[in-house]
């Protein structure tokens, strides 16, 4: 039965993407979608417009949802394996707090001082700043937690709390300094949104998913053995320190890239791996790829709601992921209560 989970998830993902492609505020009827793709004859004036909506707006957004959902969920699974802690998610290594601080700084300070100096900020400035912020805070944390080539997981967890508190203080200060318009921008960034998706953004973060797909099979065995404990994994032939380093760099880069494009989207990285562990067990060989698939499907579905429920306005996607996922997760938890102990 476990073998069936990946293909079923793939089908779910493809179905979700197909449905998402047919729904949107521009309201393109089903028949015209076929025409837009050149599969059926249609009114040429409408075909051009429909094609633009589908190709330049809807499809890049779906692609972005798939990639970001996959990145966040896989990173969450890696983090939980590495820290042997069910509450771990990419935020734990400082990715979200660093990215959020840098993004807010770009929104408030960059807007106020750079623009008034006559510099027109390119649209890429915000995601780039967020990415650099994510990497920087993870690297600082890694330095703090590492002594003589050994990385302490406990130091990582506690140092992460301190870094997050510092970043939050900075964020609070920026919120205080912001005017109404900047406040709206910060608020939307903190709750996440896939609005403004372009193929350029898809192209910029797709390599991270490819890299993740290459590395995951190599770290899956190590993570499986790490469950037994660091010493036990070491004696079983796992290079524990290298595994930790690989995981941290991987998560910082992949989750940092995802967050920099979409803003902070909570819940996906935390809950998707959990959900799957309840379904298929703890083996990372299966867990990591299925987490990516389920994360992608969840985000495609959530984003379809985010862009249509309040149309023509957009809902922050973080609200939707939590509303969809949390009750389902609770249901699974209650059903499996006996397995989790008293």
């Amino acid at each position, binding site marked *: 039965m476990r073998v069936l989970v990946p293909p079923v998830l793939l089908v779910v993902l493809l179905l979700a993407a197909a449905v998402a492609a047919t729904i*949107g505020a*521009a309201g393109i009827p089903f028949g015209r979608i076929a025409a837009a793709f050149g599969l059926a004859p249609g009114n040429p004036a409408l075909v051009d*417009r429909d094609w633009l909506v589908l190709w330049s707006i809807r499809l890049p957004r779906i692609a972005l949802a798939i990639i970001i959902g996959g990145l966040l969920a896989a990173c969450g699974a890696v983090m939980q394996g590495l820290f042997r802690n069910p509450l771990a998610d990419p935020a734990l290594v400082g990715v979200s707090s660093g990215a959020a601080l840098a993004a807010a700084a770009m929104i408030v300070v960059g807007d106020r001082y750079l*623009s008034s100096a006559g510099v027109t900020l390119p649209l890429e400035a915000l995601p780039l700043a967020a990415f650099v912020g994510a990497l920087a805070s993870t690297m600082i944390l890694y330095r703090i937690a590492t002594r003589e080539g050994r990385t302490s997981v406990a130091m990582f967890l506690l140092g992460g709390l301190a870094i997050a508190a510092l970043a939050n203080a900075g964020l609070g200060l920026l919120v*205080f300094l912001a005017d109404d318009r900047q406040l709206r921008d910060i608020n939307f960034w903190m709750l996440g949104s896939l*609005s403004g998706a372009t193929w350029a953004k898809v192209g910029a973060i797709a390599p991270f998913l490819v890299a993740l797909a290459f590395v995951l099979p190599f770290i899956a065995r190590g993570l499986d053995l790490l469950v037994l404990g660091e010493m036990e994994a070491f004696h079983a032939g796992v290079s524990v320190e290298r595994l930790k380093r690989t995981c941290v760099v991987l998560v910082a880069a992949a989750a940092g890239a995802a967050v920099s494009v979409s803003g902070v989207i909570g819940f996906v990285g935390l809950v998707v791996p959990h959900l799957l562990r309840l379904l298929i067990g703890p083996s990372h060989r299966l867990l990591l790829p299925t987490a990516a698939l389920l994360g992608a499907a969840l985000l495609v579905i959530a984003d379809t709601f985010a862009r249509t429920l309040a149309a023509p*306005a957009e809902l922050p996607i973080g609200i939707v992921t939590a509303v969809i996922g949390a009750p389902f997760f609770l249901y699974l938890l209650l059903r499996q209560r006996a397995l989790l102990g008293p």
Partner: protein
Amino acid sequence: MGHTAMKTNIVQLSFVVVAVAWFGAPGSSGADNITVKDAAGRSIAISDPSRIVSVGGAVTEILYALGLESRVIAVDSTSLYPPRALAEKPGVGYMRQLSPEGVLGLGPSLVLAAEGSGPKGTIAVLEAASVPFVQIPDRFTGDGIVEKIRLIAQATGSVQRGECLVKLVEADLRALAALRARIEHPRKALFILSFMSGRPMVAGRATAADGIMTLAGASNAITEYDGYKLINDEAVIAARPDAILAMERASFRLDAQTVFDHPAFATTPAAAQRELISMEGLYLLGFGPRAARAARDLALALYPSIDASLRSELMPSERAPQDCRQ
């Protein structure tokens, strides 16, 4: 140093109190006790309109237009017109984040603040300290401007100057209405507040942007929600705006390249002529005495087909700039 400053302020404050008690409010036209009804519907008694903290761009603009400049002791950071206001007067920070001690320390006898100023805690502290806090209503219509001027004039005991300014504004509004009557096919405009990272934050109903579009004889392309919200890209295409509006500030400028390269805006009718109209923020959205002129400028930008004769015609306030400051 802080002690000295506070001491000075207390001395100033007591001086003002004494002065008021003995001579009545200096410079006010027989205003021993004024009672006004503010935007929150409260009746507020004002005994001394001589030391005013002005909060909100339009409020400061009106106070200066009424020649009450010398009575203004501090302004907030949105008081961008006339430019000398922010340069000469001490600042009390952003209108929504007023600090009670910061304002009280200046020893004001009256705070005139645009609706929505605050926070509530600060208002409560100021009122507990017997400083009247009058909220000036902010309605985005021609009548709304007149309402603002009348309330500010009344609260400062300058009713005559107020009526002078009202007359001028009403003449401008009539000229604007005549201009609007020449518009045959109203166009749809879409106002972008922010375009951070390619995400358009767009004005819906009940916004200053919506109000100025109406005054300029255009209609808002987005009527499905109130306020400023992040809008769905596809909804921009579906709304088919004929022109894109944006405000220009020292800190915010949007160029046509950025907007019309965005896939959602590339197919709008506005993209065909690359119609991006960018105007100074307070001028366009302030709904102060210059709002009719801003609406005229916007209408001329939106409707290039309006006759040349009307184009060069000036607004009454420009043709015969009556000074209401005396």
